């Protein structure tokens, strides 16, 4: 089930809210959240819900075991790592590994056609954060199975993040309160997120798909328009989902960490990754980069650490060579920024740095969106041919690509922090607060209209 489905909006969400607020006590509320989350997951993956239940039980027992038998906690950690990483490795990477072996060594190993459990990359990382934190003694083992199950299965962030560390919600799992302000803020945040997804991301996707999936290579102008629209699509798609998750979390009394902070105004690649998918960057920093030695080591080792982290970041996004290349691309850019450019960047005007950073991100999205390395080569050869004639004809013959372009200026405008500026300029303004709620409600109505009128409604981050 996706948040932008009519089933979720008009059937699932009202039901879960009704039961959640009707039943008293934190245990009952957690039970409602856990049960509905399992239904939410089983909706799209009736069988894989068993994998999730097995994962909850195993990691719960591992946590308890670490608390009760400290001398065996290393072995228990290894067991949890094998199970959790083994599951993601099997479902997500086994097919890629075998096909790569086949093509590299001309082998004929049987190809694996395994359906990827939805959100496995997200909930596996959440579970890992719990067992690793318990191992290091940063948090106590959760003795209440229902609380741990609620944390792992919680539907708002189950399938597409943000990756909420156990420590972030540990206290709220046992005691939380929802005020009128919390609920209103949460619901309006959810509506804004839905609007980002339905009104902009889905429309930008139509242009991007028409360009990237075209049988014949479109002219350079269309390729760049497609790349720009994909950059908008992925931002609005993913940040919209995060907004919906954070908003719903707030409606249930949870305060999840922010996942985006206007990434397209970043003035360096380092800054970009402080603003884009913040919870993933934080996870890799905490559980991979720092354990490897972080930057408190020699230059060679630091470069090695960064390459490992970015290789894994690329692979986390997908089992394909394009994702590996995309990860390494960012790894190399960051190494360049930290070890070669140094203070040179700070002497360049900020606006120039922002434009260059956006162009680098745009180039990254071209790698990311390409189906294969061959398709990437084809796209880049076309895009850098700068043959712009034929762009108008391409748009005329692809109505899918033409009409959504009307929204591109709005999409670009929405990437800028003008709402934040307004809030700073008019602090505590009642008119602004009323306008915000009115906009949220209108966006909700427009999103429903669009959902009824459209059938194109995929979520990019469901793949991960």
């Amino acid at each position, binding site marked *: *089930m996706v948040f932008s*489905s*009519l*089933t979720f*909006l*008009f*059937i699932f*969400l*009202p039901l879960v809210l009704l039961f959640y607020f009707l039943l008293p006590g934190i245990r009952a509320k957690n039970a409602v959240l856990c049960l509905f989350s399992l239904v939410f997951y089983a*909706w*799209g993956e*009736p*069988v894989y819900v068993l994998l999730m239940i097995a994962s909850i039980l195993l990691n719960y027992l591992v946590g308890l075991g670490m608390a009760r038998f400290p001398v065996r906690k290393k072995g228990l950690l290894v067991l949890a790592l094998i199970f959790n990483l083994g599951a993601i490795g099997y479902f997500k990477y086994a097919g890629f590994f075998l096909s790569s072996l086949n093509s590299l060594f001309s082998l004929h190993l049987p190809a694996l056609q395994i359906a990827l459990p939805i959100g496995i990359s997200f909930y596996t990382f959440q579970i890992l954060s719990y067992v690793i934190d318990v191992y290091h003694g940063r948090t106590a083992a959760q003795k209440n199975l229902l609380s741990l199950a609620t944390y792992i299965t919680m539907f708002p962030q189950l399938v597409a993040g943000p990756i909420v560390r156990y420590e972030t919600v540990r206290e709220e799992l046992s005691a939380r309160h929802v005020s*009128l*302000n919390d*609920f*209103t803020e949460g*619901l*309006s945040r959810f*509506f804004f997120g839905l609007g980002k997804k339905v009104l902009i991301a889905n429309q930008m996707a139509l242009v991007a798909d028409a360009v990237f999936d075209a049988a014949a290579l479109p002219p350079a102008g269309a390729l760049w328009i497609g790349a720009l629209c994909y950059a908008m699509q992925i931002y609005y798609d993913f940040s919209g989902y995060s907004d919906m998750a954070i908003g719903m979390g707030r409606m249930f009394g949870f305060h999840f960490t922010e996942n985006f902070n206007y990434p397209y105004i970043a003035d360096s690649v380092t800054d970009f990754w402080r603003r884009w998918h913040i919870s993933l960057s934080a996870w890799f920093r905490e559980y991979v980069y720092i354990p490897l030695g972080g930057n408190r080591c020699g230059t060679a080792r630091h470069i090695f650490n960064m390459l490992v982290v970015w290789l894994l970041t690329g692979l986390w996004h997908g089992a394909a060579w394009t994702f590996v290349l995309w990860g390494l691309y960012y790894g190399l850019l960051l190494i360049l920024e930290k070890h070669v450019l140094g203070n040179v960047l700070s002497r360049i005007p900020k606006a120039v740095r922002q434009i260059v950073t956006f162009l680098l991100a745009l180039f990254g999205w071209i790698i990311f969106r390409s189906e294969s390395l061959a398709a990437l080569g084809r796209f880049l050869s076309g895009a850098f041919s700068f043959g712009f004639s034929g762009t*108008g*004809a391409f*748009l*005329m*013959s*692809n*109505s*899918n690509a*033409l*009409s959504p*372009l*009307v929204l591109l200026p709005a999409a670009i405008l929405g990437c800028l922090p003008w709402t934040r500026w307004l809030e700073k300029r008019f602090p505590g303004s*009642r008119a602004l*607060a*009323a306008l915000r*709620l009115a906009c*949220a*409600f209108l966006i*909700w*109505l427009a999103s*429903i*209209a*669009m*959902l*009824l*009128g*459209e059938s194109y409604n995929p979520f990019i981050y469901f793949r991960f």
Partner: protein
Amino acid sequence: MGSMKKQKKALQICFLILSAASLLLFWLVPFLGQKDVSETENRTLARLPALSAGSFLSGSFQDDLEKAAGDQLLFSEEVRSFVKGAQASVLTGGQNLLCRFNPSLRSGYTQITEGYFAYQGDEHRIVEKLQDYEAGASEAAAFAASFNSLEGVKRYLYFINNSRVTDFDRPEDSNRIYDWIRSFFSLDGAACFASDGYEDYCRWFYQTDHHWNDQGFYRGYTEILNLLKPDETPVGPGDRLETDAVFNGSYARITKSLRADEHFVVRSFDLPKYTVTLNGKRGTYGKLKAYLSGRFPSEPLTNHYANCYGGDYGEIVYDFGTEGRGRLLLIASSYSNPINALIASHFDETRVIDLRYYESYAGQAFDLSAYVKAHDIDTVLLLGDIRLFLPGGDAEGGEA
């Protein structure tokens, strides 16, 4: 400070009440009853599915519930119609803007919405485009197999070359799909309703509907008669009357692009007395007389073609009460609706079968061989466009 807090709270409560009311829209459906058919979209609406372990595990329950939610939600039809209309307007505006910069873009096909086009900048007409039908060879062969095995009857094919099978940029190649379809059949005679380029096509078909217009169907009837009974004189050409009804056809309804400025023209004929049986019940087919006397619906999305000439039934039987002129089985799509009676007037009895609806009427799949024997048929005619032969190619919401 206190009043500010109160105002904020009142605002929040107002927002929550409005949101709750809209979130609960779906829950009124069980009380208000489910809708069966969308008049504006001309399709059956999805109904709430029954839950079972099997349907849940296979995912069909989830899919069906999503479709039903979309179809049954209050005001969904009106909202869909509005969104489609707005999208069509935005697209037209965008195309006009592009063409202002580069007028040469007006040539060839311009997409209106997926699968529907304007040709050479003709803003009044909507057409479809030639597709890769040859991929459906096995479906066409399966369709032809039972037909070819018939014995003791004359077998004919009349194929309609509409915009679905024509590339207006390559008029010289316009019979390719007809030739391909014909190659599957063993026939006593075949003909094709052909157009010689886009301008000629415009003479025979409605501006925004896939069907042939009154000139087209009368021409079709004469060609069919020439195929089946070349010695007989056609009825008509009948009286033409242009009504006040503006006809927004199937393409306009699907694309929500009400661009037609075409008035619906009716054509009537003097025929001998006959009886009609519709799905086993005696009745009247179509409302031609009402149209001739100026009585017809005025809603902009009315399907005047079906309303005037008759809708689609699994089985229609025409009995002209004569003897010795033969018994015809006409397997056809809605293209035959306005000329059923004209063709039937040359036979004692004519049975018209629409394969899309036969099974739901008869409760069993259509068995051609058994049907021919049971009704002593001596002539079988296949009449339709490509979708008669490749029904799997029907787009959702499309009409054949």
